[in-house]
């Protein structure tokens, strides 16, 4: 084997791929050749490093130097300076390091040091398209251990003891689910993986499949052994092309190495799996709708009971877990349930991956022990709200979740505490909002989403989400009444109680939650006909203050609607009939003469 003195890791996650990481890889190939270094340095495509805001990311080992915002034209400098001469290219260092002038390893940065990466342990470390790299990091050792040393019941007991709960959103104890599925006898049983990640803002499942697909395959094989199944399905949305491609490569490599197929590790255990692509309907993330879709039918939920453990896919006993849940399993088997249970809180054990988005400096994926206060995630790991704005609220759990207002920023992020304040951990989307976000508008955004995604099978959801959306539309356009707010609350309760599946049951949550914590904003829209955050266009008007206007004409020249008139060096004015309320004049004015009211 050739000795390679340096490894250059290039992020191949979806985010970095769309900002040219494939070109960066190619350029490394060319430059290394040009400098005659191609035998000493190996370029490796990895999964997501998590700090998507700083992408595309390149990490050079053995130093562990972390380069951010790398462009293809920067590659030559990295090769000629760092790889050849050992001089770190300072201008590309992570901002924290640039300030201090030192190059630290990733683990020491504020973004990483409070994280505990279990699910994401291999993301950004290994090449997901090379099974041997997964093996180097103990890959398939857990499966080997389970098959050769443990009984199915011991495996289930281990998962129970870890305290792991479903990471897809509902938080049902995973070990118990496995126990139920094991309890139903049948000649055919199925193990399914829910990779139909649909919450706006959540992308951890995609990143796991892109960065460490073997961890899911290994976990599904372990689950199959535990419940007595021979066939698995991964249901993944076709909108995740990179994840689908890497998963398929991983499955074929696992077959080639004998981790899938007949007589695995010579124990007689047999298991194989296939990928099923979804068309991206949100409702197909609901377990019964997902199975209906795999069966080849239109993705609609069915009533429970019977639960999937009894009669699931094709009417057979079925175990269904989410990607992130599975990714924990090999780690738990290798390190022991106690090691896993040592993280987190009493009822919420282990770690959870959150996708940080919205008004936050370090957009990306973070994995933290359950029970970490929201404040630490936002201020320490996330780097706070940018542009000196004030933190207003964090939305968690997507369209099924609620918001955490600034007054509750010290809430620990775990299942119990989140439920207590009317939100959910959910799949882990965490959207940060600042003072410029209108909470009524946020609720409307999520209702527009659930209205579009309602499958239409049951009327509370189909008609109810539309009615709620219409009322929100009415309020944000300035035509709402106080009675509308009462109607909203009543509708929310009915829809929550009467919908068939989780989509409808949780659809009113963004409304209930914003009404609980930001009722004054609803009232301002209805009574004062005013949007306090200045978002709802119908309630805004722009005006030029004559005493501050110098008549520079910048606003008039930039106005896309031609709504501003005035002569040079004379005060200008806006014609409200023509104004489209885009706010360009406010942005362009250097004298603070334009006001929004």
């Amino acid at each position: 084997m050739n000795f390679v003195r340096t490894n250059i890791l290039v992020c191949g996650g979806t985010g970095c791929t769309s900002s040219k990481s494939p070109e960066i890889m190619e350029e490394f190939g060319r430059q290394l050749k040009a400098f005659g270094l191609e035998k000493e340095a190996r370029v490796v495509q990895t999964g997501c490093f998590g700090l998507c805001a700083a992408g595309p990311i390149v990490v050079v080992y053995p130093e562990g130097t972390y380069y951010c915002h790398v462009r293809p034209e920067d590659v030559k400098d990295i090769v000629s300076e760092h790889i050849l001469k050992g001089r770190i290219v300072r201008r590309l260092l992570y901002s924290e390091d640039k300030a201090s002038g030192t190059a630290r390893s990733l683990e020491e940065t504020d973004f990483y040091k409070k994280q505990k990466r279990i699910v994401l342990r291999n993301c950004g470390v290994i090449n997901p398209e090379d099974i041997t790299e997964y093996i180097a990091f103990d890959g398939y050792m857990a499966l080997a251990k389970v098959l050769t040393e443990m009984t199915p019941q011991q495996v289930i007991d281990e998962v129970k003891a870890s305290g792991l709960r479903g990471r897809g959103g509902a938080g049902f104890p995973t070990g118990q689910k496995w126990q139920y599925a094991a309890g139903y006898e049948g000649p055919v049983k199925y193990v399914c993986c829910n990779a139909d990640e649909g919450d706006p803002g959540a992308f951890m499942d995609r990143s796991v499949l892109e960065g460490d697909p073997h961890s899911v395959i290994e976990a599904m094989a372990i689950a199959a052994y535990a419940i007595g199944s021979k066939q698995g399905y991964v249901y993944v949305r076709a909108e995740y092309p990179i994840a689908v491609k890497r998963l398929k490569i991983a499955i074929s490599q696992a077959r080639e190495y004998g981790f899938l197929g007949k007589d695995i590790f010579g124990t007689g255990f047999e298991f194989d799996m296939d990928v099923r692509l979804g068309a991206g309907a949100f409702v197909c993330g609901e377990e019964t709708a997902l199975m209906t879709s795999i069966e080849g039918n239109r993705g609609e939920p069915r009533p429970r009971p019977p639960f999937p453990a009894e009669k699931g896919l094709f009417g057979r006993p079925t175990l269904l877990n989410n990607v992130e849940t599975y990714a924990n399993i090999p780690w738990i088997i290798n390190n022991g349930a106690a090691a896993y249970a040592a993280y987190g809180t009493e009822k919420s054990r282990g770690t959870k991956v959150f996708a940080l988005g919205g008004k936050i400096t370090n957009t990306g994926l973070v994995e933290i022990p359950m029970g970490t206060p929201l404040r630490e995630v936002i201020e320490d790991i996330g780097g706070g709200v940018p542009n000196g704005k004030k933190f207003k609220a964090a939305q968690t759990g997507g369209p099924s979740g609620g918001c955490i207002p600034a007054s509750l920023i010290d809430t620990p992020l775990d299942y119990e505490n989140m439920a207590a304040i009317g939100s959910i951990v959910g799949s882990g989307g965490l959207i940060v909002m600042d003072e410029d976000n209108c909470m009524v508008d946020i609720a409307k955004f999520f209702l527009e989403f659930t209205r579009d995604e309602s499958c239409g099978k049951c009327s509370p959801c189909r008609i109810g989400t539309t009615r709620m959306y219409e009322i929100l539309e009415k309020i944000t356009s300035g035509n709402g009444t106080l009675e509308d707010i009462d109607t909203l609350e009543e509708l929310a309760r009915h829809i929550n109680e009467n919908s068939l599946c989780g989509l409808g049951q949780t659809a009113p949550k963004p409304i209930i939650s914003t009404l609980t914590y930001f009722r004054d904003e609803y009232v301002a829209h209805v009574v004062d006909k005013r949007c306090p955050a200045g978002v709802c266009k119908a309630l805004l008007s722009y005006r030029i203050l004559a005493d501050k206007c110098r008549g520079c004409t910048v606003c008039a020249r930039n106005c896309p609607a031609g709504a501003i008139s005035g002569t040079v060096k004379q005060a200008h004015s806006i014609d409200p009939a023509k104004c489209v309320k885009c706010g360009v004049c406010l942005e362009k004015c250097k004298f603070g003469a334009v006001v929004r009211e």
Partner: protein
Amino acid sequence: MKTIEELRELRESMQRKMSLRKAGDDETVRVVVGMATCGIAAGARPVLSALVDEVGKRGLKNVIVTQTGCIGVCRLEPVFEVYGPDGSKTTYVKMTPEKALRVVSEHLANGRVVEEYTIGAAEREEARK
């Protein structure tokens, strides 16, 4: 892949290849080659290549070959330093690919410092002149 032993074997061999990506443990020996302009001009590049080749050929574990800027004794370039797991440091000067091979076989593989190539020997030599 039929047995857990086979899997373990593959894991060991892969770990060697990937040890670079783990934080150096207590056993790691670091070889740092001075690759500033002075070093390169004096012929550090073939020395580095020779080191990399030989470490690979011998399949030495726990050896990291890396590079740095100017070590400061430009007159004695090419220079490389060996940092032992015990915190010791040996500075080899006026290296050539041939000398580098000897350092790999004696020092890195067998733990015997090649006294005559060290900076101490070079300075005594200069003092004698």
